[in-house]
């Protein structure tokens, strides 16, 4: 691990926020880490590939993670689904910095054969455990190894090849965001959509890229002139001119609803009527502001209509969502057939690893035509006939 990352962890609370909001997670752009998940690769595995006896499936949660209505709870749902499907399951909760290694080892002692860890701070413990237990399948949520090692930073000492028993669970959420962008372009009354991120991390800008692409696609298909404010995807590197909360990467960046409210009001003043915030809890302030203004917002990571609740959620048209629960269960199912790892899982529209949340209040208000177009776009994205990168300045 680089020293800066290590020390960043020192500000425990802030670092946890950092890890907790997907937006902060240092996933890098897709590329090296293969596309869709491949089937069982090597090794007969630890469990019998068939029959009733399923493997022991486990999840190691982060400190204070359970009950976050996001990441950790989605992973928990994946584990519960696994239990319902006949797996023996265990999970651990962490409370301090030394718990990660201890919990993973205790899970191993319990006989866990596939272990999913949640939270950026568990990276090192997960990588160490994977090295020490080559017959156990490990996975980590919102991570891509990408040949940069467990600290996700290329160019330093831990740039080791991906262990044969490690799977990063990565999400091509730009595909879901493209659908959201198309929906926004079809719904906006003012012709202006706004977006901003917490910090210019690839995991954040991926949403913004997708939103931009969706709007461009709508303009191209329907001859509209909807504009996106806050992210000019036509540039080679839009991050310098894009709108970001900024700050230290701690609470001031990710849990700053006041700032989120201000940003939304600025957008409203510019005539924007739909905002897509990609900044964790900060974005909740924007959703509140849009709700109060009688305008709209697009949620991020999870179905925020459900996680935010009434009355604020009346602004939420839909959310660009990562199906962490699906991918966790998927990983267990693969591990059950003897798959150990060695490749990152990539959640896509095609494998339901990312998705557009239900429209809830707006389900009846959206035109059947728009819904049909969204369905078409969804299948095109799944087939690869429409790609996000085609619409971006940096290209494919």
């Amino acid at each position: 691990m680089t020293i800066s990352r290590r020390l960043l962890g020192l500000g425990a609370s802030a670092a946890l926020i950092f890890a907790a909001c997907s937006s902060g997670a240092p996933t890098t752009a897709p590329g090296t880490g293969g596309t869709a998940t491949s089937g069982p690769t090597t090794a007969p595995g630890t469990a019998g590939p068939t029959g009733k006896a399923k493997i022991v499936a486990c999840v190691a949660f982060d400190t204070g993670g359970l009950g976050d209505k996001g990441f950790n709870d989605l992973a928990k749902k994946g584990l519960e689904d696994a239990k319902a499907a006949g797996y023996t399951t265990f999970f651990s909760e962490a409370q301090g910095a030394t718990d990660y290694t201890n919990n993973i080892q205790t899970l191993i002692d319990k006989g866990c054969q596939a272990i999913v860890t949640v939270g950026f701070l568990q990276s090192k413990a997960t990588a160490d455990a994977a090295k020490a237990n080559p017959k156990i399948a490990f996975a980590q949520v919102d991570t891509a190894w990408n040949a940069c090692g467990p600290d996700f930073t290329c160019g330093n000492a831990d740039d080791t090849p991906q262990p044969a028993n490690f799977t990063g669970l990565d999400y091509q959420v730009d595909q879901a965001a493209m659908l959201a962008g198309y929906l926004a372009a079809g719904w906006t009354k003012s012709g202006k959509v706004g977006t901003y991120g917490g910090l210019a991390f690839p995991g954040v800008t991926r949403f913004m890229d997708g939103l931009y692409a969706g709007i461009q696609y709508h303009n191209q298909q329907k001859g509209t002139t909807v504009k996106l404010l806050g992210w000019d995807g036509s540039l080679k590197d839009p991050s310098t001119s894009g709108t970001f909360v900024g700050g230290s990467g701690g609470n001031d960046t990710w849990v700053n609803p006041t700032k989120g409210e201000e940003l939304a009001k600025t957008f409203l003043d510019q005539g924007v009527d739909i905002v897509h915030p990609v900044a964790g809890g900060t974005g909740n302030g924007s959703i509140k502001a849009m709700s109060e203004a009688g305008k709209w917002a697009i949620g991020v990571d999870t179905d925020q209509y459900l996680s935010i609740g009434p009355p604020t959620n009346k602004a939420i048209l839909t959310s660009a969502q990562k199906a962490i629960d699906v991918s966790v269960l998927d990983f267990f199912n693969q591990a059950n057939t003897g798959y150990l790892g060695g490749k990152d899982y990539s959640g896509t529209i095609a494998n339901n690893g990312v998705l557009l949340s239900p429209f809830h209040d707006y389900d009846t208000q959206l035109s059947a035509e728009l819904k049909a177009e969204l369905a078409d776009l969804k299948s095109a994205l799944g087939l690869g006939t429409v790609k996000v990168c085609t619409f971006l300045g940096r290209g494919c």
Partner: protein
Amino acid sequence: MGSSELRRFGELLRRGVVPALALITAFLAGAILIVLTDFDNLQHLGSDPVGALGAAVGRVVEGYGALFSGAIGDPGKIVAAIQSGDADHIGAAIRPISETLLITTPFIFVGLGLTVSFRAGLINLGADGQFAIGALGAGITAIVIGGNLPPVLVLVIALAGGALAGAAYGYVPGLLKARTGAHEVITTLMLNVIAPNLVILIVRSGIFDGSGSAIPKVPLIFDLPTVRVDYGLVAALVVAVAVSYVLFRTTLGFELRAVGFSPSAARGAGMRTGAATMLAMALSGGLVGLGSAFFQLGPASGLGGAPTANMGYVALALALIAGLRPSGVVLMALFFGALNTGAKNMVIATGIPLALLVVIIGFAMLFVAAPSLTRKIWRLPPPTMTAKDPSFGT
């Protein structure tokens, strides 16, 4: 055993009664909560009350059993493993207790730190902040001097750097109290808010970028697979003896305790209470910082963070239950270490939420802080006034 020794033993026993009962009460309260939150069983209460209650009690037994085995391990297995002489087996068998010892180390240091300040009459609630700054101090020191010196020397100086940083951060509220009268409860709490963000500010400045990862680690005591307990534990025990000596065998310690017992009397006796306040807070912060340095350069591998959530409050409970005595701190640190380690196993084995651990510790603190309540619950007679005040007296 002479009569004076017998009296001393009796005194020790009496002193331990309330803390012990407080812990028992806390565990009973925890057990009730386990039963009350066991909805799966409770919903059968109407149809099958005996079975439902039996299952609920079974869950308590199972939960506390997992807590125990997660903290200590299986004694039979440990003996068998040691007899077999196989390193893998020994490692696996003693891992639970080694994890307990691992987390005991920071608890000892922080408990000692709070003991020193409380003895001087200062309510230091800033352990969390001092811990964070201690980690920063150790990290910066290691990076600045690393590479030019032998690793052992780097380690020692980095540990000292952590202690100094913690001391400096403890000194600030001491100074504010001595010079302006600002209450240390408020100032230390505020400094807790500042500390982690200060760390982020410094890290984000980028001064650490590109620095090597050759930070030395505190050496491990055993060379066994998965066993992580290191020489920080030995250091903690040595420091506990030293703190005990300073507090009870030196003029400095006497002054600190005198100021804690009655500042006006101490002032009347010609002691400089302001200087004592600043020194006590600096010492207190220094011990917390040293514990943090051992933690960061040891098991936390520079990941940062603390051994447990709400560590300042947990350590507060620890120091109070320990009766503000270094020997008691060591004992209670071991107990809290076991509780913390065992609770993780309880979650894994039974799914009882980790939150229960915090609740039990909170209850224990409550019952210790309100001894008369504990006495009332257990129908104990009120304490005899001849006994020496266990908290601030000599």
